């Protein structure tokens, strides 16, 4: 060994032309940090993660439990309407249906009204891509993205085009509060329900002196009852492509079961603190046929917390993971203690 070292040194000194550079990179001697799995590091990782997950999980479960939520499946309750809608020739016949429910205690805070769909495959690829973002930005381009709902046979383009727009959810809900036989309509906010970026960046009406002329030369999608510029006749800033209901529908869901924000309870008068306990009635204008493909429709009233809606999954998952990590930590400790005496290095 000794003489080997000596000639290695000799070689290090004199270095004529073809001698490689003595740089740390070329000699693979770059300074480096060499982390290792030490017992301390591993155990602290496990125990700290375990503790963290447990506490987060408990917080999540607690806050999710504070959410008040009313979910009503009205697909069966309005069976007459759904039968009517099964025949598409009745598309312009109105069908109303009402659903009663009772709140046993007050729902305090902001209350959101959602409509929920089950078994509606908004995430189907051909469905999800059947839209024209350019058109929704107010640009008048002929777009092939919208197939199969691009134009009518006579060449009139649809506005908005595409399968998503065509299938827009068009049931309407009104909520009435029955107090001592007097019926009060719960005031609802229909704007401010969509993402700011959607409302202000992604969707824009075509420019013209008025909205109906802006959509001149186009036609409503086949399933729509009224053209796009009549979606909200009362509010100019909620009409056409920038209608909140439309924008929300156009943000396709990731899964076949989803809920979209429909209205928010306006907190004035007796609803200033939320929804007081009592009897309520939903008046539903039933327009959206779903029975054919066995989808179900819900209407939901819910509050939210910092962690979002009433989904207990994260909390439970955190608690389970935390427990598992902690237990694994103990197992590792046990194994390590058992093996501590064993020599796991080379005898030189």
């Amino acid at each position, binding site marked *: 060994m000794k003489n080997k070292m000596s000639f290695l040194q000799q070689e290090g*000194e004199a270095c004529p032309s073809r001698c490689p550079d003595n740089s740390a990179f*070329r*000699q693979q001697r770059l300074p480096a940090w060499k982390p290792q799995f030490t017992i301390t590091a591993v155990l602290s990782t496990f125990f700290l993660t375990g503790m963290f997950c447990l506490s987060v999980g408990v917080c999540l479960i607690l806050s999710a439990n504070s959410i008040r939520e009313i979910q009503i499946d009205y697909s069966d309750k309005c069976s007459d309407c759904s039968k009517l809608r099964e025949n598409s020739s009745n598309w312009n016949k109105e069908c109303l249906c009402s659903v009663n429910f009772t709140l046993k205690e007050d729902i305090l805070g902001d209350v959101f009204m959602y409509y929920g769909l089950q078994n509606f495959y908004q995430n*189907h690829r051909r469905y999800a891509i059947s839209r024209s*973002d350019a058109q929704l930005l107010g640009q008048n381009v002929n777009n092939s993205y919208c197939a199969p709902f691009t134009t009518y046979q006579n060449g009139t383009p649809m506005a908005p085009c595409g399968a998503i727009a065509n299938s827009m959810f068009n049931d309407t809900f009104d909520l009435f509060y029955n107090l001592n036989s007097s019926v009060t309509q719960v005031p609802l906010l229909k704007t401010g329900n969509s993402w700011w*970026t959607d409302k202000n960046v992604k969707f824009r009406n075509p420019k013209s002196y008025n909205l109906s002329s802006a959509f001149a030369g186009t036609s409503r999608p086949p399933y729509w009852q009224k053209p796009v510029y009549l979606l909200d006749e009362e509010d100019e800033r909620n009409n056409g492509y920038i209608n909140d209901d439309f924008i929300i529908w156009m943000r396709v869901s990731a899964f076949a079961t989803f809920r979209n924000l429909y209205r928010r309870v306006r907190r004035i008068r007796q609803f200033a603190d939320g929804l007081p306990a009592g009897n309520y009635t939903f008046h539903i204008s039933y327009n959206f046929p779903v029975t054919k493909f066995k989808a179900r429709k819900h209407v939901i009233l*819910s509050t939210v917390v910092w962690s979002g809606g009433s989904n207990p999954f994260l909390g439970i998952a955190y608690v389970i993971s935390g427990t598992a990590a902690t237990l694994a930590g103990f197992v590792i400790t046990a194994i390590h203690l058992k093996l501590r005496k064993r020599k796991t290095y080379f005898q030189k």
Partner: protein
Amino acid sequence: NLFEQFQRIANAYFLFLLILQLIPQISSLAWFTTVVPLVLVLAVSGVKDAIDDFVRSMLLTCTLEFDEKWMNVQVGDIIRLENNNFVTADLLLLSSSEPHSLTYIETAELDGETNLKVKQALTVTAELGEDLQKLTEFNGEVKCEAPNNKLDKFTGTLTLRGEKYALDNEKMLLRGCIIRNTEWCFGLVIYAGPDTKLMQNSGKTTFKRTSIDRLMNVLVLLIFAFLALMCLILAIGNGIWEYDKGYYFQVYLPWAEGVNSASYSGFLMFWSYVIILNTVVPISLYVSVEIIRLGNSFYIDWDRKMYYPPKDTPAQARTTTLNEELGQIKYIFSDKTGTLTQNIMCFNKCSIHGKSYEMNGKYLERRQKKVDFSYNQLADPKFAFYDHSLVEAVKLGDIQTHRFFRLLSLCHTVMPEEKKEGNLVYQAQSPDEGALVTAARNFGFVFRARTPETITVVEMGETKVYKLLAILDFNNVRKRMSVIVRSPEGDLTLYCKGADTILYELLHSSCDSLKEETTEHLNEFAGEGLRTLVVAYKNLDEEYFQDWIRRHHEASTALEGREDKLSELYEEIEKDLMLLGATAIEDKLQDGVPQTIETLARASIKIWVLTGDKQETAMNISYSCNLLNDDMDDVFVIEGSTSDDVLKELRDARKKMKPESFLDSDEINIQFEKSSKKPKVLPDEQANGVYGLVITGHSLAYGLEENLELELVRTACMCKVVICCRVTPLQKAQVVELVKKYKKAVTLAIGDGANDVSMIKTAHIGVGISGQEGMQAVLSSDFSFAQFRYLQRLLLVHGRWSYIRMCKFLKYFFYKNFAFTLVHFWYGFFSGFSAQTVYDEWFITLYNLVYTSLPVLGMSLFDQDVDDRWSLLFPQLYVPGQQNLYFNKTVFVKCMFQGIYSSLILFFIPYGAMYNTVRSDGKAIADYQSFALMVQTCLLIVVSVQICLDTSYWTVVNQFFIWGSLSVYFAITFTMYSDGDCYSFDSAFCFSGTARNTLSQPNVWLAIFLSITLCVLPVVGFRFLKTQLRPTPSDKVRKYLIKPEILLTTT
């Protein structure tokens, strides 16, 4: 090469995907997801080819430069060359400025030998001289063999004015030579351009593949099968879904044009999913593998610890595709001379007419005065010899002694160079010859000058000119060379020197007693590890010789079978020789050889020495370099001279090493019984001790026969060391081939001479030592360096690192792509099997190219589990590579399961977290775009953390790559998914605003954190427990890094 072939397959595959994407019913991804990777892959491989070409052109610069000028040279042209010109075509030398139309050339470009060689034109053409008139009128016909790559052979005839003249290599100037010491010469172009021998020699090496390469190809095919299976499942799923749900959902989403049944839709979906899931086999795999190998090859070129200053020779990775195989070597086949030894020869001992003169400088140097050579003006001052009796014998004029040295000064192919009067320098092609001629010179027989027809020798101060009548060349079969000379006195003598076994057969019966004495001496010499030669002479009869030389001329002009005819003639005249004596030349061991061999042995690498030397010499050298030692239980010597003897000896050896291998219950024997055919691969057998095996070339020839080869392999592979002596170059290759055939092991052959070329080319990896014997071995090798001891660094450090890096790379690469791709598979079950992607298209495009490529490259270029000193200190670290432990099918399956697990977590945690929930302000978050963003963020962080876990050597570059990739991802995400309008991207996926709307939510981050924890924590736990329960050698060594005191206490 293979890379190009795969490139072609890859391109076809990409083209196929592109075509699929162009079919509207099938297309599930935008065109750029395929085009961008394709362009990048092509660009990278283009750059790699450019680097390769650059390196190659560096090697060939000189020749290339002249290509332009010499473009128009055609076969049959006559060319004038001047001093120091490059020869750029293979020329037949016609005439030159020097006497006897000699031309001196340097062949460094061809074979690396720097000594001048002499070429001589035919006398008939030499007459042409410089006369242009005559040269233009020169009208002859040359018949020659077809272009080939043999640098040292040429056969042809020149027909001039009805007479035939033989042409051989002595009259050829090959492309790549440089004219030296010659004012001018004329040559006739025989081969030009690609037909030249130099060009025929380049690029003909057979392509070698590593075992990882083969495994990778198998795995890629497996993955394709897996891909097809997944697509099939999803296609069936789609058929069912469309039948069950999609058919009714047609209210809102009519079936695509032309689709009229659920099963047809399923069929189309199969191809759509092929497009989406194709990323399980990313084509960037092959490019990355090539880049890693290239990088690791550069490290070999750059290593200063493999640079040899005395010769200014750095190590060189001549093949850049075999690196990781260096980490798996199980068998080393080594040449002896010039590889284990320095190949610097010293004339050490001799036996002249039964008297041995032996003075070993080693022991007597200090006590005794050197022999005084002052009586000889021309002696080489560096020469040292300590036996005064020999000088006395020379001075007394002993006839035999004089004849002995005369022979040494005449019988050789050395070229003298006398630039100054009295300052003689010999240019010898083989160091042995140089040593012998130098010895003769010092004892007063100075070889002074040589012309093709004469040899001038100054014998004890008296200049004598011998007529050189014939040279009977040396070759590996003959193992001897002879010259026939006529002395100034008119005597005709044949002088011969050669290997003892050969020469002894040719001796005259009258020298039997002398033979015995000499044999004793020879055994003594060989026992000390010296290289021996026997010298003999024969006086020739004038008449007989005239007849012989006539036949010799005929034979040497024959076009067909010239070789055979000549060797027949040679044998005829080289018989009944009179024994003169023997010489012994010492070849010193190279520095560090015993240590290197010990280290390699500790890395459980088996070393086989294949040498042309005698058995005694070979064994002696083996003892002195620690290959064989007295601690061994036994050293078997196989020297049987019949097939049966060899078989018996081999069996006896095996019986001793492992008696139970003869029982019927033995695994291999059962295997024999079962299959009528020979088993393809023999498992390793463990002997009950440490054994060595020595086998002679003669017995080896039997051993390599079909009926014995299995027996030979079984016995030999049980021994720690095998020494084959007296082997021919062909046998060397056969031995390597034999082990390759029966053992599932990686072999390496190392050698320095032309006789090792076949073995170097046969072995999985060939290493050339750029030594004294020219460049042929280096030119056909995969790696080259100057000293044997660098082999341990090449294998234990570079090889080991390359192997580990490649394995880590492959493990991670397959993992990350499985984790990435399978998420689509799970999503299929929730999106109506509609080939909906989870990620957006730009993420799919950039994932393999931008987000995850550099960190893994960084790891596979810089990672070191333990540093080089530790790898040399603990050769045991090398063993897992030999056993293929770090990457094999099992490991691959584990990676695959880890990938599947990760993809499950990556899909279902975000799915559960997002299901039916809303943002903290009540707005949407369970939308497709938010989900996509969330999953891809999770994925990217998970694979980044995973690479962090895999990296054990964190350099700045690694940090930069990992953090850089993550920041690039977030930068791109925030620009592309921010408030800007997305119309300019012309994409169906407009993600504006997703980033800030999603990533501002606490529950999104909590879901991301949970996914990462669940993906990573089990890995941490398993890895830790693995180091505790089943530590790998490197884990054991790394323990020292934590607790260096363990090392101190145990040493």
